[in-house]
């Protein structure tokens, strides 16, 4: 796959994730103020909730594959220290959420949310370091400083920004995960 195509594809996926997260936040806030919006939220939850755990597993898998592609395939972007912290949070989510989705075990949501929360916090810190490099150091490591932007799509979307989008979407999906209606359960 062409490097530029892959990066644009990941950026589009991240933007889609951001749109879903924003829509979820608007729906949640709106449901507090309006019964009509609350009904919409309930119907969305009824439709998405039973699939949300599996969707979160898919998001974690896509993020992991994207991360591995950027570092191991053609771009060969060297992961920095903060990137590795985010990977440490994202990669286990594939297994945790994948197994939970296969077993339909909603109890794994807490573990997933903790991992995704840690990853999201690290991504936010990484974004701040990119924006304000002096937060961590006054100089650049010639090999791979965390403030270096391997990708800068549309002037705002960098790799930690994509990671944050993934973590945030996983958190939203975990919050939305619901048991299926009784008649659909095995």
């Amino acid at each position: 796959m062409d490097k530029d195509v892959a990066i644009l594809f990941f950026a589009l996926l991240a933007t889609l994730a951001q749109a879903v997260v924003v829509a979820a936040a608007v729906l949640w806030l709106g449901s507090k103020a309006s019964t009509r919006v609350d009904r919409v939220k309930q119907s969305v939850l009824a439709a998405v909730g039973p699939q949300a755990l599996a969707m979160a597993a898919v998001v974690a898998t896509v993020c992991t594959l994207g991360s591995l592609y950027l570092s191991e395939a053609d771009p060969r972007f060297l992961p920095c220290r903060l990137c590795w912290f985010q990977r440490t949070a994202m990669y286990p989510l594939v297994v945790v959420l994948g197994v939970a989705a296969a077993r339909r075990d909603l109890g794994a949501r807490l573990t997933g949310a903790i991992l995704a929360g840690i990853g999201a916090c690290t991504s936010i810190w990484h974004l701040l370091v990119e924006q304000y490099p002096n937060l961590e150091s006054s100089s650049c490591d010639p090999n791979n400083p965390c403030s270096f932007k391997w990708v800068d799509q549309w002037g705002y979307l960098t790799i930690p920004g994509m990671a944050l989008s993934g973590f945030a979407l996983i958190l939203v999906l975990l919050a939305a995960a619901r048991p299926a209606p009784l008649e659909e359960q095995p």
Partner: protein
Amino acid sequence: MTSPKKAGPPSSSNGAAIWIGVGAVIVVLGLVAVFFARGSGSDVVEGQTGTVAVGDSSTTMGDGGTGDTASGSETSASLPVYDATVNDDPAVGMTIPTVTGKDFDGNDITISGDDGQAKVILFVAHWCPHCQREVPLLKGHLDDNPMPDDVELLTVSTSVKPGADNYPPQKWLEGVGWSAPVLADDEGSSVAQAYGLSAFPYFVVVDGDGKVVERASGELTTEQFDDAVAAAQG
């Protein structure tokens, strides 16, 4: 002990529709990426890195040097890697390595310790956010406080990464209005290595005898830069 709560199977008609929708959106995004990313690859600009020759200069080693003094003239050694955490920089007193290369326009540039000129050598990387802050800061400062006649300011553009932020470095430096001579390091960053660079931006302060007076890495304030220039004057 409670049994795990059960989520629904993904085989319901509602669920199937959702998964088909998600898949369709991903396929569309993939097609959009293929269509719009075609031909958007970053081009390598000629002249941003060059061929450099390091060493091969008849210079006298300083206290930190390890060369053979019997011959009377020695090849200048590479400076040890700069460690900002060490108080006594072992490079102080060493003669700087002579390097020869070209600027972005192909003109010859030599940085040498045997030209009798005190100098401050600034190493920058176009993608480094600290360099992106330091260069305009110094540019503004030098507009109001030009370098003294007896100290030369030289720049080495190194660690060039095509496609990275601010590429090509020539465009970046010209955009900032940077007027000091710039030596384009080679792809292996030979000049940076010869001068012991460990972080960007990197300063090597050299006296009129061609010996290192001090080194520094990271962003300097204008006051610290003035101190470095004064140190070069001796």
